[in-house]
């Protein structure tokens, strides 16, 4: 799986499932599934549609570059309720996007679509040129998308290091078994907490931790893999002022390393402090997508409440 991500986009790997409807008659081996590809994602060339529709552009080094994430006309319905309606959005590497909106605006649903909790009803999610149909969070994670959930998704009865490595434990071989490599996990978790400048010890039980420490554990989890995009759902909602500053600093550090962050928050100052772009959602639709320096908290508030229709 990792190999599939690291491989540069060649534009030659066909594997579009039939239901996407993009099989081209120009492609000789169209429909032949590349075995190295992830089941959830497929690379394709849209022949006949033209190169312009591919998310290809030059990056700073002058090489072909793909948008890290491109959401195209995505919609999600739960029965009669349309939680997300026709949203398009691109995220570039190293970009911090503030996703804002009132309760029920569809932020969480959009995040869950990207994180792979459920597939979209309409539209498509393209990660580095690969059309993805996520059904499980693991599939999104395999594509370099990590999530810090609002409830942090921690098991209280486990220690900090055990939570950080939950689901992807390090192992060592003691013939003929593959056993947990506890010391390595404790050391690595310690390093991650150090990086986050958090007063958290890898051996402590999460049950006994403060809100900020728990946040650190959840964030440390995203730092394990080489995440390309980290979705953070209200990371600053339940922690102290000092810890908010730490989390914002961490977001800046991730940005500096080329990691894109999508920050879902109600806290205007936090979003303005770190974001490059602010996307505002209202009633399931996108009403604004503005560069942070070109907007003001007042305008964003207006957009969220509906006082300003669109911008």
């Amino acid at each position, binding site marked *: 799986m990792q190999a599939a991500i690291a491989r540069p986009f060649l534009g030659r790997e066909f594997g579009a499932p039939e239901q996407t409807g993009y099989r081209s008659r120009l492609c000789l081996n169209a429909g032949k599934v590349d075995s190295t590809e992830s089941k959830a994602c497929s690379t394709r060339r849209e022949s006949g549609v033209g190169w312009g529709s591919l998310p290809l552009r030059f990056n700073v080094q002058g090489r072909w570059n793909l948008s890290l994430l491109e959401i195209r006309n995505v919609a999600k319905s739960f029965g009669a309720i349309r939680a997300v309606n026709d949203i398009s959005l691109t995220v570039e590497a190293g970009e911090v996007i503030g996703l804002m909106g009132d309760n029920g605006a569809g932020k969480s649903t959009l995040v869950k679509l990207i994180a792979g909790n459920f597939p979209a009803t309409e539209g498509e999610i393209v990660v580095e040129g690969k059309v993805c149909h996520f059904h*499980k*969070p*693991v599939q999104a*994670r395999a594509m370099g998308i990590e*999530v810090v*959930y609002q*409830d*942090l*998704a*921690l*098991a*209280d*009865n*486990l220690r900090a290091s*055990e939570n950080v490595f*939950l*689901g*992807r*434990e390090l*192992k060592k071989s003691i013939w003929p*078994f593959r*056993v*947990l490599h506890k010391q390595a996990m404790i*050391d*690595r978790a*310690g*390093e991650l907490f*150090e*990086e986050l400048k958090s*007063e*958290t*010890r*890898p*051996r*402590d*039980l999460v049950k*006994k*931790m*403060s809100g900020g*420490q728990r946040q650190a554990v959840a964030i440390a*989890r995203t730092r394990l893999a080489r995440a390309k995009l980290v979705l953070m759902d209200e990371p600053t909602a339940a922690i102290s002022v000092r810890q908010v500053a730490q989390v914002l600093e961490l977001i800046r550090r991730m940005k500096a390393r080329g990691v894109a962050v999508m920050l879902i928050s109600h806290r205007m100052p936090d979003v303005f402090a770190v974001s490059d772009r602010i996307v505002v959602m209202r009633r399931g639709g996108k009403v604004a997508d503005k560069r942070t320096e070109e907007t003001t908290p007042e305008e964003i508030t207006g957009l969220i409440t509906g006082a300003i229709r669109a911008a």
Partner: protein
Amino acid sequence: MPPDTEYSAAEHAHIADVVHLKEMTWLRSVLTSQAFWVTVALFVLVVVMSLTEPSFGTADNAANITRNFAPFGIMAIGMTIVIITGGIDLSVGSVMGLVAIVGGLFLTWEYPWYVAFFMGLVAGMLCGAVNGFFVAYVGMQPFVVTLGMLAIARSLAVVVSQNQMLYKFGPDAPTVKAIGQFRWPLRVASGGWAPEWIPELSVQFWTMIGLGLIVGAVFIFSSWARHLFAIGGNENAARLTGVPVNRIKFQAYVFCSFCASIASILLLGYNGSAINALGTGYELRVIAAAVIGGADLIGGAGTAYGAIIGSALLEVIRNALLMAGIDSNWQGAFVGAIIVLAVLLGMQSGGKSIFAAAWERLKTRK
């Protein structure tokens, strides 16, 4: 990553000052564990009984006690695994009955003993698979599913056995009995080497020890067990982090039934006969043993050692009451009180067991 960032002892002290949370040392984690306090209670009980009742502290009585609680210990290990996931298995007693009857039937039909044992295991694990399927993949309440299995397996055992006791086993009857009544080490009197003071421990006991060691090692070293605990702690979090929750829950129920099947087969061999009422009411004793040993019914806590020590305590209390000449009708009252007391001892208050907290309060008062 910088390789030189190591956590020194000084830094730990510093963090403890900031967050007011003492680091869990080996000693602290032992002192806060319920299994430890139950072990202490068991030890005290054994010492007191040995001093007051001469017939209690004999090697024969030790062999007797260990043979009696071993099937419960074996089942409590399986039960602990299910309880760790936040579930419960009420069907273990009935599964025992069904396994004994299936094994007994194959022996009656003059199949070799290994075929009979294997078919018994298959029948038991099928029950576990049905439990696991409905709990893990259909998402039903474990209590309801296993309550259903409790009735179904017992009923099947009665139907299949035509409500008869099976004892006319074929040519392999002596082998079956030899397995069920195997003891080690043998004393000189029974043709072995061991001196008089060593108890002749039963095959049930050794199976329990072996199973306990295996499960204990799995708990310490495997990611499977870590996922098991994560499911009990926060099932949703486990799912989101990519833990195969359904598969592990399914396996937990199958393993629990496997343990019940092993216990049943060993009892079948020991008795030399199969009755469909085998294991009636055992489920509550097994759950009690697991809970006394520190399994948390909410999920996320429990040890193999605790399961064994919990069942040992229950049996020692029962035996002690008999030895002390107390009316056997009092057993229930004592066992019930012990269950509550054990959980009270192991209860956590501010990171300490209630016992440890009370002790510390006494110390500071002086």
